[in-house]
């Protein structure tokens, strides 16, 4: 054995970075930075949901914000009513998942083309936006929770230790909870993409016709993948809502949906680490730009998207990764890809 295989090296690096980030950052970073990073954790989870369904399933969903928002709203409404967070947490993920499966069933079993798919998922998101925006009236309440229209739902109870509502998460605890959620999603997806299901999904992305000719029911695979992506987005939404103790219909607006796509494209489609970095980098950028008044933030994000699509079409992570691999191989740190014997592990094409 000369050096590590690419996959093992990547896995090791990811594990080390995860642990370091969760242990070291709270020791050194001031409170307001921790809060900010917690927000980016929830965005990164959302980015992974699109990275999975689009980058590996080949399904361009313009509607991950819908599942994100639905998760957030479900958590808000239920936790306000129930006090304890355990059931709301579970339902806030199950409900959007079921909704995603249903929507996926209609789209994939109806054999809609990818353009219609993008349009439908976006329209669904915007319908949520419109609908929840019009729930300001007093009649729009579910139990004790007032939907509040564009004013949103304030004072959402935080996550608590199951069975003990007096032990609830402070904002600094949310850093760990959201961080661990992100790590679980990341490694969960890596595992999924190396499983038979994930590898088949990648095959379907490459050639749907061939997958069917081999006997795979493409509709079913896509529907399940869409459901999984919905579940991940919903988890991100729950974390976001907890971070904010507040949710309003903005989570469903066009800007939100567009942002997710920018995170994924800039970081690198068909990778998992890229969209996470994209969510962080563009989140920080938006925050920095937000403090000044001269240029519109959305304008700059749009410009970045165009520049990346034109000049770094693969996204930053795959491009940098290719350079690193080339360097590492030429120095003998990595086993050359040509004589690696564990090829099947690498099919996630992930970094």
């Amino acid at each position, binding site marked *: 054995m000369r050096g590590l295989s690419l996959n093992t090296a990547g896995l090791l690096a990811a594990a080390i970075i995860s642990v370091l980030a969760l242990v070291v950052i709270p020791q050194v970073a001031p409170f307001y930075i921790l809060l900010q990073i917690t927000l980016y954790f929830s965005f990164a989870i959302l980015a992974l949901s699109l990275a999975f369904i689009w980058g590996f399933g080949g399904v361009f969903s313009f509607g991950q914000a819908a599942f994100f928002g639905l998760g957030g709203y479900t958590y808000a409404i239920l936790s306000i009513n129930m006090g304890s967070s355990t059931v709301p947490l579970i339902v806030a993920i199950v409900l959007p998942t079921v909704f995603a499966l249903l929507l996926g069933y209609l789209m994939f079993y109806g054999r809609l083309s990818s353009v219609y798919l993008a349009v439908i998922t976006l329209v669904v998101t915007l319908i949520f936006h419109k609908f929840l925006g019009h729930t300001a009236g007093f009649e729009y309440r579910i139990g004790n929770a007032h939907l509040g229209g564009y004013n949103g739902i304030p004072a959402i109870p935080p996550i608590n230790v199951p069975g003990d509502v007096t032990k609830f998460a402070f904002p600094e605890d949310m850093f760990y909870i959201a961080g661990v959620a992100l790590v679980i999603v990341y490694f969960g997806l890596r595992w999924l993409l190396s499983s038979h299901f994930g590898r088949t999904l990648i095959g379907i992305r490459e050639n749907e016709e061939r997958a069917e000719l081999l006997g795979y029911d493409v509709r079913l695979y896509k529907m399940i993948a869409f459901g999984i992506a919905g579940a991940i987005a919903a988890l991100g939404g729950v974390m976001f809502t907890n971070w904010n103790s507040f949710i309003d219909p903005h989570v469903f607006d066009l800007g939100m949906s567009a942002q997710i796509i920018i995170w994924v494209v800039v970081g690198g489609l068909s990778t998992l680490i890229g969209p996470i970095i994209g969510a962080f980098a563009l989140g920080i950028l938006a925050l920095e730009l937000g403090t000044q008044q001269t240029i519109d933030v959305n304008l700059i994000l749009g410009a970045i998207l165009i520049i990346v699509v034109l000049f770094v079409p693969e996204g930053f992570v795959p491009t940098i990764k290719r350079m690193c691999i080339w360097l590492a191989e030429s120095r003998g740190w990595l086993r050359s*890809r040509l004589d690696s014997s564990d*090829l099947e592990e690498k099919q996630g*094409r992930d970094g």
Partner: protein
Amino acid sequence: MADTNFLLETRGLTKRFGGVIAVNDVNFNLIPGELRCLIGPNGAGKSTFFKCLTHQHKPSSGKIFFKDRDITRLHTHQIAHLGIGIKTQVPSVFDGIPVRENIWLAARRYHGRGSANKVTADVIDRVGLGNIRDSMVGRLAHGERQWVEIGMVLTSDPTLLLLDEPTAGMTHEETEKTARLIKEISESASLIVVEHDMQFIKAIANKVTVFHQGSILVEDKVEAVMANPLVRDIYLGKEKD
């Protein structure tokens, strides 16, 4: 349904694309173990006929039977499950992933985790893909992509194999290798092979079906078909109305 001795049978199979009748009232049958060649000029409807069999195209009318079972309305993946494999005219492969992963995805569909790896290795050996097993399929030459596709189909040990122009774009040696492979496959499976190369057809086939304008023009032994003036005419484009 009365039992027949046919492995595959079509009755009145028709496929229209708007005003074009690509396959016109075709009654075709194949007995188990047979290796049949399908020939005909460009646009005769050979590929469309294949795609109706696999339900990549929905037939406009007519019926398809496989082992006396009506499969006309089954989905593509269900037909694959019954043991019909196809190599399409334009290779249909997973371009962005390596050869070995292509074969593995095919093998894993019908084999457990352990035996899928073994079947993958066997097929790579059998088709002779050892040297390129780690290459991305998208970067391979046309001939190699065809072999990858044939290899994928072989993993499921299909009962019936449909090969649409398996030697297109191949060198002389590659064509010979493919001919040997097809002969070998025919020992354990039935095949229908679409080909243009008459030498090749002579080398592998016994019975030949000639398609013309969506219909079966002639069906006979290979020598008889090659001697048939009608067939010569349509290939040379001298047909009268």
